[in-house]
């Protein structure tokens, strides 16, 4: 009931290599799920399946209690791709223009931006801390700032589900903690459900309600508390043997082979 995302024994392969095997998990309304796993473990692929950009080989996917084939309410989902800021850097578009595209699906065809939409756009830009940058060319912003523009584009349509694929890559520590605060604010105040892919295990376990560890198969799916209890074991299964968990005073956790 009330699941935003529900995967039931989903498998997927590109050409001949199996990338995802028998994945079952669900994300309920208002929950924050953190997805971790090494490079090439299939995290982005899993998200592409959820967004309907790829079709599963086996298994079923449901979005908001509808089989994905029948699902039509895509504006309910906000998405920031891992490759969001690999666009053509010389593209002449302002921050405002890029963020406004996040509303276009909801607005429908033949409509122009009105006062209400413009306010929404300014609000989203403000929420990601880019007030004053509306008229700047997006190509001339730093990588982290660009990333925030794409987050603003994802949240401007007030989605019920936000899917973020490594959005904090290239974002400095201070902006990163602000970013998590923003997400938690969205989650608490607007009851947005969030699926976040990240490499930063420390940050993930500190902020999410659920952790999923993926490396082709799902190695762990549960509460951060349980995850921390069995961390060493899970991590060595996930990343291969001989991983030592290093804890730093500043709270970060690193895994070294």
């Amino acid at each position, binding site marked *: 009931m009330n699941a935003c995302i529900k995967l039931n024994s989903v498998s997927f392969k590109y050409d001949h290599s199996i990338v995802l095997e028998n994945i079952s998990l669900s994300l309920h309304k208002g929950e924050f799920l953190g997805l971790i796993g090494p490079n090439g473990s299939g995290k982005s692929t899993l998200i592409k399946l959820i967004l309907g950009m790829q079709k599963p080989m086996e298994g079923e996917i449901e979005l908001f209690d509808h089989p994905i084939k029948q699902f039509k309410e895509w504006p309910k989902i906000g*998405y920031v791709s891992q490759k969001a800021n690999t666009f053509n850097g010389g593209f*002449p*578009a302002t921050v405002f223009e890029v963020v406004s595209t996040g509303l276009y699906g909801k607005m429908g065809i033949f409509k122009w931006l009105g006062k209400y939409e413009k306010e929404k756009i300014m609000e989203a830009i403000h929420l990601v801390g880019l007030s004053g940058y509306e008229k700047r060319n997006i190509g001339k912003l730093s990588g982290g700032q660009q990333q925030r523009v794409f987050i603003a584009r994802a949240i401007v349509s007030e989605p019920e589900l936000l899917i973020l694929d490594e959005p904090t890559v290239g974002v400095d520590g201070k902006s990163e903690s602000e970013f998590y605060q923003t997400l938690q604010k969205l989650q608490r105040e607007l009851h947005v459900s969030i699926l976040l892919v990240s490499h930063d295990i420390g940050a993930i376990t500190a902020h999410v309600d659920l952790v999923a560890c993926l490396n082709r198969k799902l190695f762990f799916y549960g509460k951060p508390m349980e995850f921390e209890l069995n961390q060493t074991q899970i991590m060595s299964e996930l990343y291969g043997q001989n991983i030592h968990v290093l804890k730093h005073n500043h709270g970060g956790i690193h895994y070294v082979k």
Partner: protein
Amino acid sequence: MLEFIYEFRYAFAISLIVGIICPFVGTFIVVRRLSVIGEVLSNMSLSGVALGSLLGSIIPFSFVPTLQIYGTFFAIIGALLVEWLRKRFPSFSEISIPILLAFGMGLSVVLFSAMNGFNVNIQAYLFGNLLAVNKTDLITTLVIGCVVLIIFLLLYKEFFAVTFDAEYSRLIGIPRRLIQFLLIIIIALTISVTVRSIGSMLVSGLMVLPVATSLLISRGFKSLLLFSMLFSVTAIFIGLFFSYLFNLATGGTIILISALLFLSVLLIKKWGFQTSIANSKSY
């Protein structure tokens, strides 16, 4: 002056339309890194015109309302081929350009040479003649121009979204394929209608030069569009006037003025930039 405007009222009206739609279309071409597509499509359009006049001279009573229809048809086919080849070779998307450029050129040359002896004015299609346009040309241009502009105004935000991030627009429910297809049709229509007045050799210049000039000074997409139009209309009017005054080829004069505008903005910008550096150094 007023006499000049009255005498060439058709030319003025046509150039105003062409001057507005060309940079509009050109903007989308440039940002999709397809600047040379104009070259390809005008060649295709030319071979369409060649085929049309060949058919007209072989089959005596074949009904050819205007050769532009053949040109438009071929330009659309060319545009679809460009997109198709771009999909076939995603990592070498520019490869479609030389392939189709050569094909269109070869086809035109062969078709025109097959017509040796039939008196066809290729010159008029290669270089256009804005000062010699008539009422029929004006009506054709007006109709196509309005169609293009209306589609653009209605679908501006979809065109922008798809051009900026095709994958994302599909996700938010914009019919990406349809929008891209419409954009291609519009590009082809614009080119075939412009060939008549500016000439197939120069269409591409009119689509790209004002946009290049505008790129130098715009930060956003809307301002890019508006400045491109401003530069293009300016160049066309000045070009028309000069070509009349000194009896020069119209299309060529317009392109030269466009190039001159580009150069001046480039220099002004560079000069302005250096002085601002000089200023900041003095602090």
